[in-house]
């Protein structure tokens, strides 16, 4: 990176450290931080969308749709989430390949599950075995995002369902008295009002989502945990210009600090948003705000 880094063996102290921390592999580590942030940026809205869909399905008049909504939200309870992460990554991959297989190779006569192998025709492989490395990585990342969205969608559905129930019943009754249809009452009355009730749950969910991001590592994505393990270990370091003993402790300490800062910042920002939203609301918190100001 810097001009004085050409011969690392002559370096000392801080200049050694500055060279060490800017090697190509460390840049990969910094890029993986961006990967984590991208995951959060994509997952949060997608999960919210899934959750909204499931929560409204759970309130539907149509029985099978209601079953689907309730089933989706309750299936994630009671089972450890990592089990879902490990399950969905393989299951989704196989489901996609199976669907492509059905479409692209209709005249395939062998069974797909042969003993312990899962065999689909070459054209149905995802990604195609001829595609470049970055396609494989992007596909892996995409699967991870989908998995996160499905699991966190169920949590969000739970929160949003509660929020919809929390909107005073009288509001809906008034809407009905004005002659609004169910659909109109839902979109014009219920949805705008539910966010105040949903925000505490959703901000809690955001914190949990941040803390779930290291699990990307289990899904086979080269994320910060992967690079911290890789760079902190002695094995990889031995063959570089910067040999060092086992520094896992320092790398994981850095990750801990990173996450602590991240959650702290989120806490402060979410606290501000909550304060803004409760202003003038007829809730206990809103009342407390009014008294404090007076």
């Amino acid at each position, binding site marked *: 990176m810097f001009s004085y880094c050409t011969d690392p063996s002559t370096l000392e102290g801080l200049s050694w450290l500055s060279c060490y921390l800017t090697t190509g592999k460390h840049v990969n580590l910094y890029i993986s931080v961006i990967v984590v942030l991208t995951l959060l940026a994509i997952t949060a809205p997608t999960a919210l969308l899934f959750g909204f869909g499931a929560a409204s399905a759970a309130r539907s008049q149509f029985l099978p749709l209601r079953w689907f909504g309730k089933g989706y939200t309750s299936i994630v309870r009671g089972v450890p989430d990592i089990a879902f992460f490990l399950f969905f990554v393989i299951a989704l991959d196989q489901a996609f390949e199976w669907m492509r297989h059905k479409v692209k190779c209709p005249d395939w006569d062998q069974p797909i599950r042969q003993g312990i192998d899962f065999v689909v025709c070459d054209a149905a492989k995802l990604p195609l075995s001829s595609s470049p490395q970055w396609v494989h990585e992007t596909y892996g990342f995409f699967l991870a995002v989908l998995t996160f969205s499905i699991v966190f969608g169920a949590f969000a559905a*739970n929160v949003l369902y509660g929020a919809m129930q929390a909107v005073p019943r009288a509001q809906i009754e008034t809407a009905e008295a004005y002659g609004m249809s169910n659909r109109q009452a839902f979109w014009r009355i219920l949805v705008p009002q539910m966010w105040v009730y949903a925000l505490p749950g959703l901000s809690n969910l955001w914190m*949990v989502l941040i803390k779930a991001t290291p699990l990307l590592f289990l899904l086979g994505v080269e994320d910060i945990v992967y690079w911290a393990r890789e760079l902190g270990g002695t094995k990889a370091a031995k063959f570089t210009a910067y040999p060092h003993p086992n520094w896992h402790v320092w790398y994981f300490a850095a990750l801990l600090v990173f996450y602590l800062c991240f959650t702290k910042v989120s806490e402060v920002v979410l606290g501000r948003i909550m304060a803004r939203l409760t202003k003038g609301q007829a809730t206990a918190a809103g009342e407390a705000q009014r008294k404090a100001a007076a």
Partner: protein
Amino acid sequence: MSCVETIQAYAFRSIGFGERLLPKGEYTLCEHFTLIGSGMIWNIYFGFVALLTGFFFAVALAVGKNSANPAWRKPAEWFIFIFRGSPLFIQFFFAYACFLNLKGVSSFFDPFTSAWLGALIVLFCNTAAYSGEIFYGALLSVPKGDIEAADAYGMTGWKRFRRITFPTMMRLAWPAYTNEAIFLFHATTLVFFSGFPAWRQKGDALYYASYFADKTFNPFVPYPILAFYFILLTLVIILLFGFVNRQLNRHLPQERREKIRWRANLIR
């Protein structure tokens, strides 16, 4: 092998008894059930011991965080912030790396690098921090009148805490604490995926489930079995904690009792 033989060979495989080699080739449903069930021993061990020991530390943390003296308050606040603010997964990695370094210093730290002690310490601190925050919240919502009544009877200090504050705090915190217990048992599945080695393939339920999924490339059998075991475990926890909850609330009129509400489980 018949199913009975499989059970004999693998029921205690996760703690080192029975057949040394894991099953090979065609995996039967019976093998799935037995081995994943055997792994549950670890999950129950981690969850039970961490919960039991963490409880006392959590009460201490809650009282510390509520203390007027900053010498008590600050350490409790920081402890809770650090363990609640960072992912458990990273905590496991970090603790394992620390213990590995300490092992080089003294052989006293040898057992700390194995899961049964090292991971247990992390889970202990983690659950203590989360439950400490729950208990602290409950401590803040102990009715003012209760404390005033205790004062009027001339109770102070330890006696007031033991007879008035603590029972009410427990009663208020218990529904949330039940959820925390469920989360903790779910969190125990992270142990063998986070640096701590599964020595001689002695792992927990998720370790064996993912072993089967890796070998058969079929996630649709082992993970539902794991889910079955965990739902069973969750029901048992709810039953036990519900019993305690009834005991804690038995002096109250029916409609004022705290109900245990069933909330979504969230990763820490």
